[in-house]
């Protein structure tokens, strides 16, 4: 066993033990604890939990690689701006009001505010979005185990499933929240240490966010020499229309993602919900402002070390990844030298997902740090997976079982159904992680399109427009969902592979679906029965902080079921 593997085992083992201990210490006995941690999490902890929940294997493992390799520097900004800009929308438009409204899930809000039909549509959207997303996390876990511990990916996924099973089924949202606080700490330390080391080494400035300015001119020059577009040049891969629409889709999608929104129900009160959003974006920004610098530094290293190197004398880190086929070198012209370039004669292909994992090796950092990065990647994947699994199980146990099938169910019974749903969801997620359907990688980005097109309008209108009706919201959600899915099927390579309308990419289309959703909801609301006076009063009440009788009665479930 190599030194790197030993350190990976040490850090992964220690962090897993910590997660399970925390879950055991915070195990729950009631549904409020299981679904929303009793609603009593202080804002900084809730913010760290949101950050861990939110930053998935895609943020930790893939994002820097996508910025550096598959797009052209600037174009990766759609992820940076899109995934952080959504928090402004969440903080201003949704978080405080949803917290005041109370309850457990997005379908809970939709069902209570509009109608039972709308609730079921929301359950379907929630489950689809969450499963699509969780499959990616599970295969991310498999990838890390495969590379660092030399087990096969299937075993890796199963280890991940067992760990999540323990702390999610036992502790519910309460266990998950405190585990995520620990996972955030692990992942951010693991991300920042190599970034600071690399920045110091290349620029002698220990702050990567500032240091990476120093190398941009050199990087632009190297890229130009090899026939690539300049690293900082705009609209070389994507045109302005698609950059605009995709950024917007990721922003509004973030603000409609069920596992992020549910986190504002766990805050102590309305004020804590606002502060949670601030803490969350602060913790996220630590990683999101670092990622583009890691991308630029690694790209420079690759261009300098690998391009033009002898084929049978690769740098050590490149050889390790070449051994597991994540870097492929093919000496097309047979001159024994790697020709890296923008055209068909390119002889080097690097998988996006290895950039962050390889960054410490590229910079020649010692083995313990590489082990730490592996533990960080696992923390990122597992924290997001557990948040998503909780959303799936609470939507099924609370919104389908308790609200539709058996409203007489006792607390203990609901909790048991929640745990069974959680266990079943873990098994399905594990299966999807082991046998990922071919389209998973593409579909993860599409989860945002669906969240954006289905949820964002009904949430915002539900809060800001008292007269938004149940039929309007249902029709709008269905329109957004169906149109967006249809467009995606029509344009994704493996299905229709069409150019689409105005060349709008499938990943950029969500915001168009959202606009249609708004339009349909508003038009249909003009012609359908208005919400009851009590409901309109309730919607007005959630605009002001503090206690009121109506909100309290609603939270306790004392309002009549046909209050819509």
């Amino acid at each position: 066993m190599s030194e790197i593997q030993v350190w990976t085992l040490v850090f992964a083992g220690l962090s897993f033990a910590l997660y399970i201990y925390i879950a055991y210490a915070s195990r729950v006995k009631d549904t409020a604890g299981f679904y929303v941690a009793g609603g009593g999490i202080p804002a900084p902890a809730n913010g760290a939990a949101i950050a861990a929940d939110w930053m998935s294997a895609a943020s930790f493992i893939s994002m820097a690689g996508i910025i550096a390799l598959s797009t052209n520097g600037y174009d990766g900004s759609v992820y940076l701006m899109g995934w952080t800009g959504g928090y402004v929308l969440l903080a201003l438009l949704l978080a405080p009001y949803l917290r005041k409204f109370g309850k457990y899930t997005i379908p809970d809000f939709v069902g209570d505010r509009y109608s039972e039909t709308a609730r079921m549509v929301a359950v379907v959207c929630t489950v689809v979005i969450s499963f699509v997303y969780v499959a990616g996390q599970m295969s991310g876990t498999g990838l890390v185990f495969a590379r660092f511990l030399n087990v096969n990916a299937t075993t890796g996924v199963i280890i991940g499933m067992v760990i999540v099973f323990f702390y999610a089924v036992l502790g519910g949202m309460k266990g998950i929240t405190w585990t995520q606080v620990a996972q955030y700490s692990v992942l951010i330390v693991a991300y920042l240490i190599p970034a600071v080391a690399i920045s110091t080494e290349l620029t002698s400035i220990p702050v990567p966010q500032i240091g990476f300015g120093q190398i941009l001119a050199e990087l632009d020059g190297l890229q130009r020499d090899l026939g690539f577009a300049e690293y900082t040049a705009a609209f070389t891969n994507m045109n302005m229309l698609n950059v605009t629409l995709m950024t917007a889709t990721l922003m509004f999608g973030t603000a409609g993602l069920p596992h992020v929104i549910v986190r504002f129900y766990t805050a102590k009160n309305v004020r804590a919900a606002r502060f949670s959003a601030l803490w969350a974006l602060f913790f996220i920004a630590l990683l999101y402002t670092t990622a583009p610098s890691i991308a630029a530094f690694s790209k420079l290293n690759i261009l300098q070390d690998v391009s033009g190197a002898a084929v049978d004398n690769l740098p050590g880190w490149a050889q390790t990844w070449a051994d597991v086929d994540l870097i492929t070198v093919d000496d097309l012209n047979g001159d024994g030298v790697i020709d890296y370039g923008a055209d068909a004669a390119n002889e080097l292909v690097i998988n996006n997902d290895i950039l962050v994992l390889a960054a410490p090796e590229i910079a020649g950092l010692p083995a313990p740090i590489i082990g730490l990065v592996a533990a960080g990647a696992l923390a990122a994947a597992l924290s997001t997976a557990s948040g998503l699994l909780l959303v799936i199980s609470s939507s099924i146990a609370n919104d389908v079982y308790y609200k539709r099938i058996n409203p007489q169910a006792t607390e203990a019974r609901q909790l048991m159904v929640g745990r069974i749903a959680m266990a079943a969801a873990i098994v399905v997620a594990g299966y999807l992680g082991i046998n990922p359907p071919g389209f998973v990688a593409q579909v993860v980005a599409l989860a945002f399109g669906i969240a954006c097109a289905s949820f964002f309008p009904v949430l915002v209108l539900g809060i800001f427009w008292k007269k938004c009706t149940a039929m309007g919201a249902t029709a709008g959600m269905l329109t957004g969902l169906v149109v967006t899915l249809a467009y995606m099927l029509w344009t994704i390579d493996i299905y229709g592979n069409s150019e689409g309308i105005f060349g709008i990419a499938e990943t950029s289309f969500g915001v168009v679906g959202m606009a249609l959703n708004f339009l349909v909801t508003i038009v249909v609301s003009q012609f359908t029965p208005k919400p009851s006076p009590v409901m309109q009063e309730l919607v007005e009440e959630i605009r002001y902080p503090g206690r009121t009788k109506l909100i309290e009665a609603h939270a306790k479930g004392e309002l009549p079921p046909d209050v819509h």
Partner: protein
Amino acid sequence: MDENQRRAYWRRNLRLMAVLLTIWAAVSFGAGIWFVKPLNNIVILDFPLGFWFAQQGSILTFLALIAVYVWRMDRLDKEFGVDELEEEGVHHP
């Protein structure tokens, strides 16, 4: 709060939101996307300005916007006597 106070509170909340969201759009879509090319001709501390807004500046601005929102809403709540302090707002069932 009586009816007039409620209306005043809500109007001020909406105005704050409108201002912050305008800045949000101007920095991300404006500086980071639509005007990125002309801004890239300005280089500050080795960063082409448009590129910097797209990869760093917009994120830092978003953070500042939420900070201002949280701070101003706190003040607004105090002014109207609806601040929550450490007391719990809504109990879950």
